């Protein structure tokens, strides 16, 4: 008798596999003003957002295509008045439905309506572990207290709760306290993600870049906590990119695992893909999701290995990290087809290291909140 817990088999590079996950950015509207917001500089206005029936049509196509996990995100997804209807439609299609929320705008009654509609999981962001500091970073007075209330309501409902914390220079020393808070809030999982410099976050790079000392301590803290809380809290950790030797396997490979739909229906291989000017993206209002996933130029641009520079093609890690992040290559190398400059083998790595050290060594500067 053999019992296997196996994750997905090794990638078949000859053909794009069906997508596993879809991130639906229901709206760009958000009450918070986080300095590391990953949404693009130009936000989609409300009157361009997909309507309820349009979103439900996209969910149906996604389920038919093989998507298992649906992430309802934003902006703040609770800003959509039809969030309960959208959740109910997604759940009825068998999609594992996850609400990624700031908590602001949710009441206990609304949470109960969502869980009654079939919501599977709630992912709640925190910006820090004290009301003063957390509210300073989110730019929203009273946000922290509201989040604590939301966490309790979710716990009361029985639906699994993940606490999601973006960490950066101002809060990276609080990781231990964030983990303790997640346990106190009865979360089953915490996602600690070091800030990535896309969208609005790019403007605050100098203020948010963690120091090398912070990054090293964080790695140790996470390893110890995983050991200590095994079976109590699942800890997912996205380490600091610029301080790593090898790039992240961004999105699990371009067009391999997931896709992202913007509020107005453009379909992207990742949320920052629109920073690559050579690509154009199709819209669910004009094309089917299947056509976009399997046949569009944007999704095929960086699939497989033929697009890779020689440095990546000859590298034994090419099926581990797929050459890294295309948007980061665009931002740092001015070439979306370059090896991610985070890679120790990139000719641009030395320059990135110097720049990172310079930002880390600078006195801690203040940041610009989004939209305040």
């Amino acid at each position, binding site marked *: 008798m053999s019992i296997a*817990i*196996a994750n997905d088999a090794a990638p078949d590079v000859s053909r794009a596999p069906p997508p*596993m996950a879809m991130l639906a950015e229901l709206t760009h509207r958000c009450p918070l003003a986080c300095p590391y917001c990953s949404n693009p500089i130009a936000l989609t206005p409300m009157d361009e957002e997909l309507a309820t029936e349009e979103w439900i049509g996209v969910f149906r196509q996604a389920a038919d295509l*093989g998507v298992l996990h649906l992430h309802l995100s934003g902006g703040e997804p609770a800003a959509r008045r039809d969030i309960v209807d959208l959740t109910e439609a997604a759940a009825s299609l068998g999609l*594992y439905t*996850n609400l990624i929320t700031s908590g602001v705008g949710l009441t206990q009654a609304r949470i109960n309506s969502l869980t009654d509609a079939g919501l599977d*999981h709630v992912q709640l962001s925190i910006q820090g572990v004290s009301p003063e500091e957390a509210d300073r970073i989110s730019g929203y007075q009273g946000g922290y207290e509201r989040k604590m209330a939301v966490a309790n309501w979710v716990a009361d409902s029985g639906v*699994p709760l*993940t606490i999601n914390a973006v960490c950066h220079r101002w809060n990276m020393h609080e990781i231990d306290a964030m983990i303790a808070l997640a346990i106190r809030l009865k979360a089953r999982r915490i996602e600690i993600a070091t800030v990535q410099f896309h969208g609005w976050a790019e403007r605050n790079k100098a203020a948010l870049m963690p120091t090398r000392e912070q990054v090293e301590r964080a790695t140790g803290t996470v390893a110890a906590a995983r050991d200590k809380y095994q079976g109590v*809290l699942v800890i997912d950790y996205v380490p600091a990119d610029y301080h790593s030797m090898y790039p992240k396997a961004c999105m699990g490979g371009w067009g391999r695992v997931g896709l992202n739909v913007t509020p107005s229906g453009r379909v992207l291989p990742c949320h920052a893909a629109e920073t690559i000017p050579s690509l154009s993206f199709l819209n669910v209002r004009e094309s089917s999701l299947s056509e976009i996933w399997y046949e569009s130029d944007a999704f095929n641009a960086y699939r497989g290995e033929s697009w890779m520079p020689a440095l990546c093609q000859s590298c034994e890690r090419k099926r581990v990290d797929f050459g890294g992040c295309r948007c980061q290559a665009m931002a740092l190398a001015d070439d979306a087809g370059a090896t991610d400059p985070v890679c120790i083998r990139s000719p641009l790595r030395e320059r990135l290291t110097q720049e990172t050290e310079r930002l880390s060594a600078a006195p801690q500067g203040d940041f610009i909140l989004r939209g305040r």
Partner: protein
Amino acid sequence: MTVDASVISGSSVVKLARGVRLREDSVRGRTVLLAPERAIALDDIAIRIVQALDGKRSLDCIATDFAATFEAPAAQIGNDVVAFVKELSLRRMLELVQ
């Protein structure tokens, strides 16, 4: 409540935690266990075990039923079932009923 994997034994009664569920994945022709940010492909025996975690029968009882079905030694199957269930509990996918 939280399940401490070390307390799981043949006498334990468990069920899948809320937010963890089996689903047919017809596009890929397999069955997957879905949980927050996780999708785990299971083999046939693992699917049978997960389906048997009904929150009523003990793991020993489940193993005895399997031993009869598969005509295999109950002790061996019991060890495998407990080991598999411990793996699920470490992933925060179970609720301990008793």
